[in-house]
């Protein structure tokens, strides 16, 4: 077989052995699921307020989506205005979609290198027409990346003015750039290869500053397998699929994570700069997340 299937066989063997041992081991009273659930409820009842706060932050499996309003996307540390821009009123598309995707960006996002599928086309037809900033969509570069709280997220390439500080787009140079589009909400654009490798593309959506919960998402480079997000004392890890992960948090969209750490496929960990530490120089960011070397 090959690396992938041999690796899978080894992992399956390990999991099968662990499960076989679990079956062979007699279930003790505290191992039974029902008793564990009762213990869990009791523990919640006597927990300190700090524990309640920790467990109350995350809502990854909410049944109803929170009301979504304006979405923001940023490739920069929270609090910075450079390169971050709320969605602006739509303007008519002004450019034809002839630009190619920056190969350095393409080399970092497997989801853009895979062939387009029917699921990549948003069911919400207006999404494609009303993409942010009135830019022109580059054909065949829309990729469905995942869903959070019943909102579907798409990664797309558009051609338009490069967002600048203060969102003054009129005289900005036109460039192909990455955008996130959210079905049922809006989206945002603006990221370069270095920014993608250092910060990913992160964003949040929710109804204004007073919203009780918000959806937070991030698009990360290929090498990232999991992302660990911390709000105050509460930490949670999310697996990355199609360069995407997202979650619902019981906090307003203005509240950003205190720390985000990427765990790469080879086990190395990388603290996303801008949250608690100064940004590394671009050269080291290149080394941390190597670009894809495949044929795509």
């Amino acid at each position, binding site marked *: *077989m*090959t*690396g*992938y*299937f041999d*690796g*899978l*066989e080894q*992992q*399956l*063997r390990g*999991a*099968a*052995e662990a*499960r*076989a041992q679990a*079956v*062979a081991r007699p279930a003790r009273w505290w191992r039974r699921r029902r008793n564990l659930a009762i213990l869990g409820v009791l523990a919640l009842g006597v927990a300190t307020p700090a524990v309640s706060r920790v467990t109350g932050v995350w809502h990854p499996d909410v049944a109803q989506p929170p009301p979504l309003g304006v979405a923001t996307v940023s490739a920069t540390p929270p609090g910075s205005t450079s390169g971050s821009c709320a969605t602006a009123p739509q303007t008519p598309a002004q450019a034809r979609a002839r630009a190619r995707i920056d190969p350095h960006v393409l080399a970092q996002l497997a989801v853009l290198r*895979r*062939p387009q*599928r029917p*699921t*990549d086309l948003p069911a919400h037809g207006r999404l494609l027409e009303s993409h942010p900033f009135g830019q022109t969509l580059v054909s065949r570069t829309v990729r*469905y*990346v*995942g*869903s959070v709280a019943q909102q*579907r997220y798409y990664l797309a390439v558009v051609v338009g003015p490069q967002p600048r500080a203060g969102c003054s787009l009129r005289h900005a140079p036109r460039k192909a750039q990455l955008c996130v589009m959210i079905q049922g909400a809006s989206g945002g654009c603006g990221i370069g290869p270095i920014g993608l490798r250092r910060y990913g593309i992160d964003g949040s959506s929710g109804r204004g500053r007073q919203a009780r919960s918000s959806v937070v998402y991030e698009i990360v480079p290929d090498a990232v*397998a999991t992302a660990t997000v911390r709000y105050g004392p509460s930490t949670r890890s999310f*697996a990355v*699929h*199609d360069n995407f992960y997202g979650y619902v948090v019981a906090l307003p969209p203005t509240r950003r994570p205190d720390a985000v750490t990427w765990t790469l*496929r080879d086990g190395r960990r990388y603290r996303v700069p801008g949250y608690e530490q100064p940004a590394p120089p671009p050269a080291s960011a290149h080394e941390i997340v190597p670009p894809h070397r*495949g*044929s795509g």
Partner: protein
Amino acid sequence: MEAMRRDADRLLERFAAGDPDAFVAFYRQHLPAILGWFLRRTGDPEVTADLAAETFCAALLAAPRYRPDKGSALSWLYAIAGHKLADSRRHGIVEARARRRLALTPLPIDDDDVAYVTEMAALEPALDDALRALAPAQRDAVVARVVEDRPYGEIAERMQCSELVVRQRVARGLQALRGRLGKRA
């Protein structure tokens, strides 16, 4: 085909009884067929590899609940595969729920893996035909030794013959398979 069905049932029963090697043998035995099944439906080797991994992980998780009286292990495995395919089409993404539950680490897919998927998918019907054409005793010996990875002594005990006879059956069976698959190529 009937023998293969019985083999699959037996392997799952052995796994449910606490033999982890039985599940690995089940994986080896049915991986080519599952790859072919997914590739014919998706046309994408990478998605096929991903779906096959998720299917076998889901099968591992569900194996203790498998009931032979409700259907064969093969139809049970293909039912899981069908669910995984439908879910991936509905959500536009291959889920990794079962792999996460088993705490499997993500595996990168390279060009060799893609080539392997394509080869296995093409080979699977031919291998099935060639296996079916073997004498029953030879086929059982080849499957037990090559697919299930069982020691010769154990196979000999099960087949109620000497170890030497089992070795001969495996060697001749493999030779016959090589001949048939070689002719096809």
